[in-house]
């Protein structure tokens, strides 16, 4: 069996969970069942939602000590369910939460963990995983060493959530993990946002992102108008946020957010790899840049070579026509 560890917060599933399910189904290739475990407290609705996936079972791993995330509690619960189910692989979304606990989980189980996976395949029947190296300058095909289970975390946006096959209703199995409260060393306080207007761009359906080509802070008014016309969130590449023109939470890329919206419009962004890794999973990418050689055009579905200060207002006018 291949086990997916779902991610939820306050009972709501992270969309990247469905990407991990898609990866697990691809890895299983019809030869192995895929199961899902969701860890937390008050997770009945999340488990019911997961039961719609084409999976053999959903394990609702429920414990009051999982109510707010801490790495020690999640490692204990995940180790418990993995030991009970003996999967061949464990798939997780490569989220900040996975990055926090999965390496410790792998170390405690004494098993391999391959992170940031963007592709799964087989060579001579054995699973082979593709992952970026050297900041995306290269991609590596890697195999896990040592005994199963092998843990795999999937880069956000690398697999399509809508490619996860739906089934006819998988059974939900309640599982109460053994967690020794005395062994929990971290105490978590409630998550908070630094700014009131904070936005989770990973959940946005459409994003308009601006880069160095925007040139000056006052031009962000036009960028915001363009985003509004698209019904999109406004985002940026790192230099814009480093300048303080937009808050850091709106930064897309390896040091910012990773997104996979339906539409990504890159305006005046050249497309350095640090930016591309954060958005290349978008379904449709539009690049608008005056430099025809900009790497952004290599990942774009639609490209306009032109002055963004002319194309931007024209697009706003066109979109407002409805």
């Amino acid at each position, binding site marked *: 069996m291949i086990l997916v560890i779902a991610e939820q917060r306050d009972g709501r599933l992270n969309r990247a969970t469905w990407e991990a399910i898609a990866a697990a189904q691809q890895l299983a290739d019809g030869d192995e069942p895929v199961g899902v475990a969701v860890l937390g407290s008050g997770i009945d609705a999340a488990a019911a939602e997961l039961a719609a996936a084409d999976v053999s079972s959903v394990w609702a791993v429920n414990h009051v000590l999982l109510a707010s995330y801490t790495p020690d509690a999640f490692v204990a619960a995940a180790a418990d369910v993995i030991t009970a189910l003996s999967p061949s692989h464990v798939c997780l979304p490569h989220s900040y939460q996975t990055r926090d606990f999965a390496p410790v989980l792998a*170390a405690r189980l004494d098993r391999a963990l391959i992170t940031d996976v963007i592709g799964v395949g087989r060579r001579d029947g054995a699973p082979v995983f593709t992952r970026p190296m050297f900041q995306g300058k290269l991609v590596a095909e*890697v195999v896990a*060493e040592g005994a199963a289970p092998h843990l795999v975390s999937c880069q956000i946006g690398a697999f399509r959530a809508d490619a996860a096959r739906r089934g006819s209703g998988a059974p939900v199995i309640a599982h109460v993990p053994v967690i020794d409260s005395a062994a929990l060393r971290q105490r978590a306080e409630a998550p908070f946002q630094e700014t009131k207007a904070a936005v989770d761009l990973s959940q946005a359906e459409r994003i308009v992102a601006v880069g160095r080509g925007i040139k000056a802070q006052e031009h962000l008014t036009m960028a915001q108008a363009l985003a509004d016309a698209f019904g999109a969130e406004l985002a940026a590449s790192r230099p814009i946020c480093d300048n303080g023109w937009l808050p850091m939470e709106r930064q897309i890329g390896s040091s910012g957010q990773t997104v996979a919206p339906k539409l990504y419009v890159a305006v005046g962004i050249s497309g350095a790899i640090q930016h591309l890794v954060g958005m290349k999973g978008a379904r449709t990418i539009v690049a608008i840049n005056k430099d025809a050689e900009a790497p952004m055009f290599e990942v774009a579905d639609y490209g306009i070579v032109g002055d963004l200060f002319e194309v931007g207002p024209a697009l706003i006018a066109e979109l407002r026509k409805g």
Partner: protein
Amino acid sequence: MKIAVCIKQVPTREWQPRLSDDRTWVRDTEISYEMNEPDAYALEEALRLKEKHGGEVVVVSAGPSRVQQVIREALARGADRAIHAQDDALGRADAWAAAAAVAEAVRPEQFDVVLTGLQSDDQGHAQFGPVLAERLGMPHSTIIMEVLVADGHLRVKRELEGGWFQYLSMPLPALLTIQSGINQLRYATLKGIMAAKKKDIRVVTPDAPVTSRQRVLSLSVPQKSKQTAMITGSPADAAKELVRRLREEARVL
């Protein structure tokens, strides 16, 4: 407070990789190296903790003899001494193997705090810190943007996704992985560079053979996967055509 900071030597950002003949690694004789950027922020945070709370900062690095370049740089910025887990096989080892070698080298020192960057700019496993914490039996937290110390405890600000943060507390000793941008980096002064020459680097050779948990079958340059439809014409015409195709072809509006 006795602070260890683990740093990695990685290729410079400008480096353009060339593959080795067997295509399982890069031509590593042609690389110029620098300190992994997130580790530089971890070093800075360690120096600030020492300035506030006293103690010493010990820089730790795993790798072939070449990594003494970044060890010397850390010493020049203000670290007191260094531990070098030295083995040629650590040059391309994964995070698992590096954590094993470093755990062995630092365990006898009984550090109060171990800091490192959230991930490396070369292999990018983002595993070294948490695996080291587990091997040392320490609690940990990752992607940290603020470190507070009081009464034998750490209180840290952890970055979540989407502009969210969270404070966590844990007892010392503990391990943290540091996010880039947590502080403003200092650079080595001439005085620091001179002083670094006299600072101690303890070289430790791992007892056990260096064993990675994953094997690279092949490396390659990423393929361009998309056909880009270039839309031409006046700004107004191009805008009209783009919107039409986004509505009718891509169906994203």
